[in-house]
């Protein structure tokens, strides 16, 4: 065995035995430092003759390379061990809970209003609004409901207290969204100087009646629909309601039944029943196992059209009104009306909708449970 072999054996053993980076560094200095033994061997090469250098050189260089490589390998290993130890010491309980940003909710009534706006936009209906504290003329008079009409007894109207001796016409909380029909037609007639123009609107909003029991609340939500044009008939009304309800409930088996009825502001008037079927003990819209009344409708009374300044000989159309709360309940399986307005966060979290549940036609206006 030559001296280089011996040195290599010794150093490799020392490297392998180095337990830490410091010990390894000491080995490196012993071998490759300025005073190192391998360094010393290398220095001897300069004093040798070319022949001797050729004989000794490769062995010494090989020694240096093998020691360098062994140190690097040992170093990488030791570093890995150190890192592993550090990581092991840093371990945390990943089952600990994290704070999610609280998920807020959109109220079912708002969600359904957005759904309605989306569906009706596709049919060319804009969304119109009007005041909730209404004057008598817009809520009753213009709608062909005179003071003494028994129809006024049909709706328990909230009246706004007037100052003693006030001469102004009484103000009411609107009992339906129909005054928005009036405001829209009056505005159109004014703008067009009586010439009229095609109108297609829906008017969702709060309405008020003095009634409070399991199925009535003194405030609730309605959506009004109004189409005024030339040549509009009951047939268009029927199609529109069918189309709307099919789109809203996303079922093609929605069947309507129109029944003659009476509203002072429409003529002919029709109550609309929708067929339901019973699935898992719940009434579900679609099919015709039974009928439930969902909305009132009819052809706008010529007097109402004339009251708004349009010529009923030229313009005619239909109107309908429907409870939004009820639509929401029917679609989303909400059994009780009253919690709608109690703002119980548990209820809101259960029946509410996520911010990103935006109704779209391409995605479907409904939000799956």
């Amino acid at each position, binding site marked *: 065995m030559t001296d280089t072999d011996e040195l290599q054996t010794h150093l490799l053993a020392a490297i392998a035995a180095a337990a830490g980076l410091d010990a390894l560094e000491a080995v490196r200095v012993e071998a490759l430092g300025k005073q190192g033994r391998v360094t010393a061997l290398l220095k001897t090469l300069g004093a040798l003759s070319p022949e001797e250098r050729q004989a000794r050189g490769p062995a010494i260089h090989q020694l240096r390379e093998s020691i360098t490589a062994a140190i690097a390998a040992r170093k990488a290993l030791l570093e890995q061990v150190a890192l592993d130890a550090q990581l092991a010491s840093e371990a945390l309980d990943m089952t*600990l*809970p994290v704070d999610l*940003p*609280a998920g*807020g*909710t*959109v*109220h079912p*009534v*708002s969600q359904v209003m*957005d759904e309605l706006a989306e569906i*009706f*936009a*596709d049919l060319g*209906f804009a*969304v119109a609004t009007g005041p*909730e504290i209404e004057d008598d003329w817009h809520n009753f008079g213009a709608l062909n409901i005179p*003071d*003494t009409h*028994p129809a006024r007894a049909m709706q328990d109207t*909230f*009246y*706004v*207290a007037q100052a003693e001796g006030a001469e*102004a016409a009484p*103000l009411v909380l609107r009992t339906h969204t129909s005054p928005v029909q009036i405001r829209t037609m009056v505005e159109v007639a004014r703008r067009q100087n009586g010439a009229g123009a095609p109108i*297609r609107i829906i008017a969702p909003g709060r309405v008020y009646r*003095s009634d*409070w029991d399991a199925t009535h609340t*003194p*405030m609730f939500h309605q959506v009004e629909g109004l189409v005024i044009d030339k*040549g509009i008939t*009951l*047939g*268009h009304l*029927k*199609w*529109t309601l*069918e189309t709307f309800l099919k789109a809203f409930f996303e079922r093609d088996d929605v069947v309507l039944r*129109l*029944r003659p*009825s*009476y509203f002072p502001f429409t*003529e*002919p008037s*029709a109550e609309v029943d929708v067929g339901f079927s019973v699935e898992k003990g719940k009434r579900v819209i679609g099919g015709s196992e039974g009928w439930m009344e969902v909305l009132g409708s009819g*052809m706008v009374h*010529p007097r109402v059209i004339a009251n708004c300044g349009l010529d009923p000989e030229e313009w005619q159309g239909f109107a309908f009104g429907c409870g939004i709360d009820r639509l929401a309940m029917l679609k989303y399986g909400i059994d009780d009306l009253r919690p709608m*307005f*109690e*703002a*119980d*966060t*548990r209820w*809101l979290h259960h029946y*509410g*909708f*996520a*911010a*990103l549940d935006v109704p779209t036609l391409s995605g479907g206006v409904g939000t799956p449970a």
Partner: protein
Amino acid sequence: MKFTLSWLKDHLDTGESLDSIVAALTRVGLEVEEVENPAARLGGFRVARVLTAAPHPQADKLQVLTVEAGPEVNGGAPLQVVCGAPNARAGLVGVFGTAGATVPANGMVLRVAAIRGVESNGMMCSSRELELGDDHDGIIELAPDAPVGAAFADYARLDDAVIDVSITPNRPDCMGVRGIARDLAAAGLGTLVPLTVPDVPGEGPGPEVRIEDAAGCPAFYAQAVTGLANGDSPDWMRRRLRAIGQKPISTLVDITNYLTVDLGRPLHVYDRARLSGGLVARQARDGESVVALNGRTYALAAGMTVIADDVAVHDIGGIMGGAHSGVSATTTDVIIECAYFAPDAIARTGQTLALTSDARQRFERGVDPAFLDDGLAIATFLVREYCGGTVSDVTRAGTPPVTMPSYAYDPARAATLGGFDVPAERQRAVLESLGFTVSPEWQVTPPTWRPDVDGTADLVEEVIRIEGLDRVESVALPRLSGVARPTATAEQKVERRVRRAAAARGLDEAVTWSFVAERHAAVFGGGDWTLANPISEELKVMRPSLLPGLLAAAERNLRQGSDNVRLFELGRRYLAKDGAPLERATLGIVLAGDRRPRGWREGKAAGFDAYDAKAEALALLAAAGAPVDNLQVMGEAGDAFHPGRSGTLRLGPKTVLAAFGAVHPAVLRAFDLSGPVAAVELYLDSLPAKRGTGFMRPAYAPPALQPVRRDFAFLAPAALAAEALARAAKGADKAAIVRARVFDVFTGTGVPEGQKSVALEVMLQPGEKSFTDAELKAIADKVVAAAGKLGASLRG
């Protein structure tokens, strides 16, 4: 309105089944609410004879009977029955309920059972048990020749379905059975039986009747009957009245009630002995009053039409008779009134007095003005038939308004308005079957019993409802070509964005009442609009703010155990401007409970503070498209907020976009809330309108060079708003400074009394080339100078 099938068949000759009649009623617009056959509830009850009656061995008040109930019960063999009725005796024919039958009055199912040790196989029944009357003193006693074994419902002629229809307010004619029959006949369900009007010749002059209020009572016909006896009305009449839920009283009363339902013709009968002088239809005088038949006293006023004699008011015309002259068992002489009262006047009087009656319901809808003579003749005939007596001539005061308008009708309207092309001749037939007269030239006159018909649209409705509204075919609305156009207004888009942004920020949308308690409104400056007839004191004043409803909701949620309430509502505040309602679209937010629950990372729970409210306000204003960077925080958030921990966000000094802050402790107390609550009101209608600039955005490329950050620590007067200092710093060199942000505020050790230390981070953005040291120093000097103007100096 209720009637029975047999009653209907008095007027309608039909072979149709009950089911098809019910379906047709709903189809023509007379919505059937309920159909009930009393016989269905009496299935297990039969006519039975008591054969023997013996004392019960164990009980003094009971008897043991043997009862025979026909071949279908126990094979015709007698049954043993224990009975407690005092009138139970051998030979009595009564009503026997077999085991398995359900007693209508209490829902009890009869069973074979031992009563005090003696087996009983059913029950002999009282009237009350079968819900046929109030009598419970003994068991029913039928005629001795009643057919034993017959189904009791058949024997008692109770097998007569009761139909309850809801009559829309436009159909006075269908407030009588005959009107309903007419509609059904028109719809092809049979033939209308001609009405027989008896001839009742009078003897002697009619009663003295005159009209002073021709507007309220255009016609007043009357006839006297003398020497009559007012006992019980005939069985058939009593049976029908009972079937529809009315209580038979006496023949005279029952006749008027019967005709009200049968023909929709209300009448009134006065006891002539209680009258002084003739009857006059006049306006009531202020201060007059009358005790009505319901026992209540009504204060009358001018404008109300009444019927009076020389002394007192005897009838609130067309609504309810007076108690004083009402008929009784001892009545012998009567005046029968058949009048026409003006619908509007009746409605007003009825509303003022809050008095409803079957008569009012009909008069205010409009009874047939051409049916006074016939109605009176039918009534008088029945009175004479069942009470005897001598009939006077008819006195006729005034003239009923029998002239009907007529309309030039184009049968094409059925198609052009109703969307249902009904052949013209079929339309004529329908209208004529409903009593309309149709001239060959299509001039159409409604019958006198249809005051509701008003114009040709009504004629279309008549045709279509009889032909079948369900036969109208759907026709697609014409639609614009291409993709549907956007329809939402700018305000609607803002509302939608704000709603979804709020939900995305973890807020729950509430919908609370538009009306609040007066005391809660008062906390927010009081409401401008109070309801005259609130449903409760809690829902009385139209809300001047969205916060009362949300605070009350927060309190409920906390009380129910929620520890974190973040509610928002998008709705209106009901304010006034120049005395007129002003409804302002508003977003309200209430944050209560823990902003952050206690946690292993964050430690103790923390409540919401005014800065949380500010963050929500700014975030949602940003979502609404408001120029958030240009907003100024100012004061005057209102009395509902903590005066030192609240503010407004304004665009310019006047336009308030939002108020935010910690809720005032006094307000919290008013809502039973404890602990800090933060709130926001965001005034959506004050947001500046977005100018329509299309979709193109201004050109932009990120700067190539890195920004430079410099920190400044200032000593500033304690009262100086931090934002003012940051704004001043940012404005010190508009070209170079892109941001100035407060990152620390400190008072205490090392900071002189009355001052605070405010640390700003100022960000400089170089343009084409980097800042030189000299430039940086110059900018820093400008920042210090700007701060100096506000009394702030660089900390040494």
